[in-house]
């Protein structure tokens, strides 16, 4: 008898028996539940992710709002205070200075703080140091001499710019000779007409 052919026959027979074996039915409900729970897990994961993102966004918003409040609190009281310190004096429209160039940042000043321009045509800050702080440590707004004659601004914006000490002359201020080449960070209080009313040296 041919052993190889006999082996093939036997393997066929074993194969028929083998293929008659089915998968255990006990696993079917388990896999059914595993698949169904998958969508629940996915939903829960998505929900957790959504909540995490929402919480992060809220925290971010709170931090940003806190930063804005902190910044505005740091700048508003000074402007308001200075606006009240400068006495009002009606002036003529004879000298209208050029608008401030290259505005860096603008802050809205409350309408409740109108600024009326006063003072001489030229203010020598060094000379007036007895009444006002030194020019390079001016941390409060001083009315610009060139703003004389301008109508009173009802709303002011603060514009931060870098200027050379020598450029202050065009605003009616005189810087000391040694400060002429220095670059200063200054803030201008600008009226709604775009014309500067007051200045403050930041540093």
């Amino acid at each position, binding site marked *: 008898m041919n052993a190889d052919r006999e082996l093939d026959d*036997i393997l066929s027979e*074993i194969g028929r028996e083998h293929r008659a074996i089915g*998968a255990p039915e006990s696993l*079917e409900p388990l*896999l*059914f539940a*595993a*698949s169904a729970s998958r969508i629940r897990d996915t939903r829960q994961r998505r929900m957790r992710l959504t909540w995490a993102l929402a919480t992060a966004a809220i925290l971010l918003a709170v931090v940003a709002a806190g930063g804005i409040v902190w910044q505005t609190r740091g700048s508003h009281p000074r402007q308001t205070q200075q606006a009240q310190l400068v006495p009002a004096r009606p002036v003529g429209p004879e000298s209208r200075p050029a608008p401030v160039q290259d505005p860096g940042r603008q802050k809205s000043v409350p309408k409740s703080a109108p600024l009326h321009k006063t003072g001489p045509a030229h203010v020598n800050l060094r000379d007036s140091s007895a009444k006002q702080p030194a020019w390079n440590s001016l941390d409060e707004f001083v009315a610009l001499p060139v703003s004389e004659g301008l109508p009173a601004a009802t709303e002011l914006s603060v514009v931060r710019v870098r200027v050379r000490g020598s450029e202050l002359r065009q605003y009616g201020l005189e810087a000391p000779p040694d400060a002429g080449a220095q670059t200063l960070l200054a803030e201008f209080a600008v009226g709604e007409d775009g014309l500067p009313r007051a200045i403050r040296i930041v540093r």
Partner: protein
Amino acid sequence: MFDRQPRRRLDGELSDEQLHREALAGSGEAMAALYRRHGGLVYRFSLRMSGIPAAAEEITQEVFLALLTQVDRFDAGRGMLSTWLCGIARRQVWKYLARNNAALVDSDEECTLELQSPDDGPAEVMLRGEAVAAVRAGMDQLPPALREVVILCALEEMSYEQAAQVLAVPVGTVRSRLHRAKARLAGLLRTEMASMERKRG
């Protein structure tokens, strides 16, 4: 009140790929249909390789859960789901055999098959039945690398290409392993037949 919606049977309606997509989307019916369609193959293979029904059941469960967890690994464009499942089952089986210190004899090593003594069976057993039992026992003693080829090609009647996909080896390797396995089983059978002839004489 409310009638509970009967479970849909999707066995013949959808392709493997569609059922897999539905199962991933949370359809228990689709998962059950896939299990009914391919669970037998996976379970039989695991059973033949491990020899223990409980182990085969555990492996089968792992394989089908992998359908849900190893989503990205199955590519319908590269092969059939049945061969992919069988490939996972094979890896699980080999892990099981390694854990249980089974004799993972390399397929290239010579392995001597020991027959069950013909005297173990009742004398009145038909000769054919003895031969079948001898081959079955011989299969169980084959090294796993040869045994799995016999299971897939001879018992499951897979093509060489399908078996090669399951085993992740070239088709030529499948052919050579099957040839070696059959040669050993044929030698065993010849010995058995000679023994039976002697008994008859």
